[in-house]
């Protein structure tokens, strides 16, 4: 009977060791350090909310050395920050099997004093694309039933083979830790490395959902950013927006969904009602000013 349990224990420790070879400690706030993972050679991904300064960031590498790191960019919406550090080790291996609720999961972090650390639990929920309260979109909602200790955020969430499922964060949900899915991390890393930031599309409209006489729904324009993308395209206050890029829009979430798939600079067709008559206008998506 012994050895099922002892074998599982050894398997878990091996998974921690394997994944731990790509996990670093990130020193970018006072008191507790956080964790980060080498996602690509020389590229560390961590949780954006644990980065409290933009300069004098250091990381403790998997081999124990402390080296300086530079912030390549971050996306508060998905809680992803990207750091560059000089290290030639291999990045974390990626999980290829589909995740289901009930799978065992480990979060692996690192601290300068005691090296690799691990916590274990299960994946408690997996569902489709999900928008965070910070406005970003995760490709999957992966809720974790495990304890994230101070310093765990930004660590890598792995399966029992030590393969990365995503990045651990305690900042996107009040009730549980989440894994930022690997595919979302890939997308954000690509965008940050090519553009230095994640641009958020915007139209410059204040909208309110309304029900039309024919019981369809639309969004009435209550305010207009002067010189904003919609104003430039000829939208006026009182217009009722009924479709964007061919999809019907009934609430502001629908607008966000369209904007996520239409990068800044692209032109979208807006269908609207003005005085009861249908109009089409082409709006060029603008970039939302970043809060500093």
């Amino acid at each position, binding site marked *: *009977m*012994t050895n*099922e*349990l*002892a074998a*599982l*224990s*050894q398997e*878990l*420790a*091996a*998974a*921690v*060791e394997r994944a*731990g070879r790509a996990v670093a400690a990130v020193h970018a706030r006072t008191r507790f350090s956080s964790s980060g993972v080498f996602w690509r050679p020389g590229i560390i991904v961590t949780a954006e909310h644990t980065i409290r300064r933009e300069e004098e960031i250091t990381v403790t590498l998997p081999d124990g050395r402390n080296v300086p790191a530079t912030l390549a960019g971050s996306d508060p919406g998905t809680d992803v920050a990207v750091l560059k550090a000089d290290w030639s080790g291999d990045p974390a291996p990626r999980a290829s099997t589909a995740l289901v609720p009930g799978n065992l999961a*480990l979060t*692996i972090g690192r*601290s300068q*004093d*005691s*090296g*690799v*650390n*691990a*916590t*274990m639990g299960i994946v408690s929920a997996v569902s489709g694309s999900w928008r965070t309260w910070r406005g970003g979109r995760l490709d999957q909602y992966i809720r974790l039933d*495990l*304890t994230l*200790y*101070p310093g765990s955020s930004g660590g890598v969430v792995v399966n029992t083979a030590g393969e990365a499922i995503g990045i651990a964060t305690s900042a996107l949900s009040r009730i549980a830790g989440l894994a930022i899915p690997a595919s979302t991390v890939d997308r954000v890393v690509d965008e940050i490395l090519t553009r230095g930031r994640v641009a958020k599309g915007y139209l410059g409209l204040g909208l309110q959902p309304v029900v039309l006489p024919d019981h369809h729904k639309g969004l009435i324009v209550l305010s207009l950013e002067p010189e904003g993308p919609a104003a430039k395209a000829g939208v006026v206050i009182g217009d009722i927006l009924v479709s964007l890029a061919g999809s019907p829009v009934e609430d502001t979430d629908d607008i966000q969904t369209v904007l996520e798939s239409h990068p800044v600079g692209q032109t979208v067709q807006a269908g609207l009602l003005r005085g009861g008559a249908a109009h089409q206008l082409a709006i060029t998506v603008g970039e939302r000013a970043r809060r500093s």
Partner: protein
Amino acid sequence: MQAFGAFAERLRRSTVQVFSHKERGGGSGVIWNSDGLILTNSHVARSAEMQVELWDGRRFPARVSSRDPRRDLAELRISASSLEPASPGDSSTLRPGELVMAIGNPLGFAGALSTGVVHSIGALPGMGRQSWIRANVRLAPGNSGGPLADARGRVIGINTAIVNGLGVAVPSNTASAFVSRGPRPALGVTLRPARIGLEILDLEPQGAAARASLRTGDILLMSFDDLSDALDSGRDVLRLQFFRGDRTRVRETFVRLGARAEAA
């Protein structure tokens, strides 16, 4: 998995409840050999006369035969034989991620089991250079002094504290060294970090510091880590500098560590 239950049951028989004479609140302990040697935390064995209750309900008076406050370990003796001792594991081979289980008497629930994995192994900030095991097992007051065991049921640590929600345990190799070689030298003082140095809050009457004429309120001019290193250096006599009242005059004393008169 059946195995968890089976190991937990065996470990439960090697785990005891420890009560101090005066108050009811107590902790846990581990039966270290069949002739009545029980290991617990020094902070659990506060008074010289203790009570120990076995898993089967038998209760024995216990004597504190040795104590090491810096490692938070104490040795109790009870007059019993044919006990079921725990089997110690080798804590030096432990790795983060290994499955562990803790047995104890959290909040008075005798023999409660909690499980998790090893979180990390290493020094704790401000606690000297010695190594501790951290585990993501849920502990509560009353787990102190109880066993932390691996997936084969071997005791790899003595549960000691809860830090940021993580269980902290003294590694079993440290516990074995304490049993075989006795306590490490100690000053016999309770210290609190002051603005500079360490303030003496309390002294053991026959402790090394008391014999060197140190008093309550004196401030030792060193850090906790420096003191730990000095005590572990193997020297018999330490030269300590301190303030007494007047913070402009540095005083000096020689503390003879040597053989400690253990509480008998």
